[in-house]
């Protein structure tokens, strides 16, 4: 809106004839302190204020003042009740409200936010007010006031009815709140159960992962698998190893395949390795070649050893001797098994 349009809108503004959006724009402009618009506002405000003076004069019921005074007295101590309006703020605009905190409210909206005991107090005050009014009505104005008294009784009945309705609404809300709480508790219980199930599934998953890892490790290393592959190989050859003087009860069988260069050694009744020693398998050719080392633990009667071996077309025999751990290139220890091809 241009300034001219804003200024033109002031006559409509002061009597509440602007649309909400236009009123808000003008409110904002007036807050900027525009002198010419404020001058126009004052002039047209005076017109708006004068309009009700042209109405036919109708005095309020004589008992209204007594009722206000009685209600005011009964609400002492409850002045700090906070309540806001559910009703829309209607025109004229904010500047025309002339109030620092324009709190629009209806009796019904006001009562919605009031606790039961205050409603009860208000009803009691209304009854007390009716009694007071009845006393005041006993005056020279009995005829005039009897109509008003009837009206106020009707109002009291209406207020009681309204109070009952509010009570009913309050109870409905409490019921709804209770249901919502129960629903929330059920949801929380369901959530907790699902969480437990999730934790359980995660634990199971961990176990399965561990088992899978173990299985894969075992599968990668298992000599049985290697043996199975070797036994299915058509070019595999076998040799028997016999125990030496150092271990007469010991024996062994040696399988090997030239093509894949895999060898498999199965031993029986080898003594357990003393600390710092290990058994070493040798290919005996012109000079011995170490194939690998293995340990036999205490109580073990058999041992399976699989190893890739170097090419040994000229090998005549195999032997297993007990050597210092990490021993040298030549056999230095006592032989325990020996075979010849």
């Amino acid at each position, binding site marked *: 809106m241009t300034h001219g349009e804003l200024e033109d809108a002031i006559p409509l503004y002061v009597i509440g004839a602007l649309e909400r959006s236009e009123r808000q724009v003008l409110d904002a402009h007036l807050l900027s302190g525009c002198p010419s618009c404020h001058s126009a506002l004052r002039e047209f405000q005076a017109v708006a204020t004068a309009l009700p003076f042209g109405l036919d*004069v109708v005095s309020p019921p004589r008992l209204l003042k007594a009722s206000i005074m009685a209600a005011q007295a009964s609400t002492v101590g409850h002045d700090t009740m906070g309540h806001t309006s559910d009703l829309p703020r209607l025109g004229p605009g904010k500047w025309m409200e002339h109030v620092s905190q324009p709190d629009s409210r209806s009796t019904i909206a006001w009562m919605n936010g009031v606790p039961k005991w205050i409603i009860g107090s208000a009803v009691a005050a209304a009854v007390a007010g009716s009694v007071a009014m009845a006393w005041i009505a006993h005056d020279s104005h009995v005829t005039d006031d009897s109509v008003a008294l009837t009206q106020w009784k009707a109002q009291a009945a209406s207020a009681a009815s309204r109070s009952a309705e509010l009570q009913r609404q309050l109870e409905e809300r409490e019921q709804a709140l209770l249901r919502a709480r129960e629903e929330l508790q059920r949801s929380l219980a369901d959530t907790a159960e699902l969480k437990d199930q999730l934790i359980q599934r995660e634990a199971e998953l961990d176990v399965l992962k561990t088992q899978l890892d173990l299985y894969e490790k075992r599968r990668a290393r298992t000599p049985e698998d290697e043996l199975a592959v070797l036994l299915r190989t058509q070019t595999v050859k076998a040799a028997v190893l016999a125990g030496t003087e150092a271990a007469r009860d010991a024996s062994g069988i040696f399988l090997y395949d030239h093509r894949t260069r895999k060898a498999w050694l199965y031993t029986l009744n080898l003594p357990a390795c003393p600390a710092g020693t290990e058994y070493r398998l040798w290919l005996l050719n012109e000079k011995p070649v170490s194939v690998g080392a293995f340990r036999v633990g205490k109580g073990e009667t058999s041992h399976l050893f699989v190893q890739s071996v170097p090419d040994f077309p000229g090998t005549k025999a195999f032997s297993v001797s007990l050597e210092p751990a990490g021993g040298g290139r030549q056999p230095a220890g006592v032989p325990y098994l020996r075979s010849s091809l």
Partner: protein
Amino acid sequence: MRQDPEQAVSTIEPALLSRVMKGEHQAFSLLYDLSGTLLYSLALKILGNREEAADLLQEIYLEIRKKSVRYDVGRGTPIAWLITLTRNRAVDRLRAGSIRAKRRSADLPNGSTAERAADQPSGSFDARADQELRRLILAAAAGLPSAQREAIEMAYYAGLSYADISSRLNQPPETVKTRIKLAMIKLREALQKDEERNIPS
């Protein structure tokens, strides 16, 4: 309580409201005596229902007493504040729709003679300044074209925007805006001329 006959509604002093806000019982009583009739007439005109009008007045005066609403001297005269507060609250109720049916059944033709005789105590709203203002605004309103007067009444007493009035009267919005603006300007001129006459030379 009977107020001073020369104490006018239209010239309520800010000091009176200040005393009310400080909790002075007599000041509150005087404020009601001065303004009650005008505000009730306004509420009744808008709401068209005596019970609702009385209920609204009770609500407003109690809020004033409890300081739930506050007068700001920088934004107009006390009576302008009271009138605007009453008018806005009444329109709020009217738009809330709860009293439309009652309004139809109990509509009053702007306060009939019988109504006034039953309700009006002597001494209310009869100060010379108030009567002069009343005479002035009635004369100025009577001088307005009926279409302009109707537009003003629909906006001010029925709480309708110019767009609402436009659709009710089946007239272009700009026409309604112009009617309201012209009417307000004429009323303003009438008030200003009266002020100029009353300024001593």
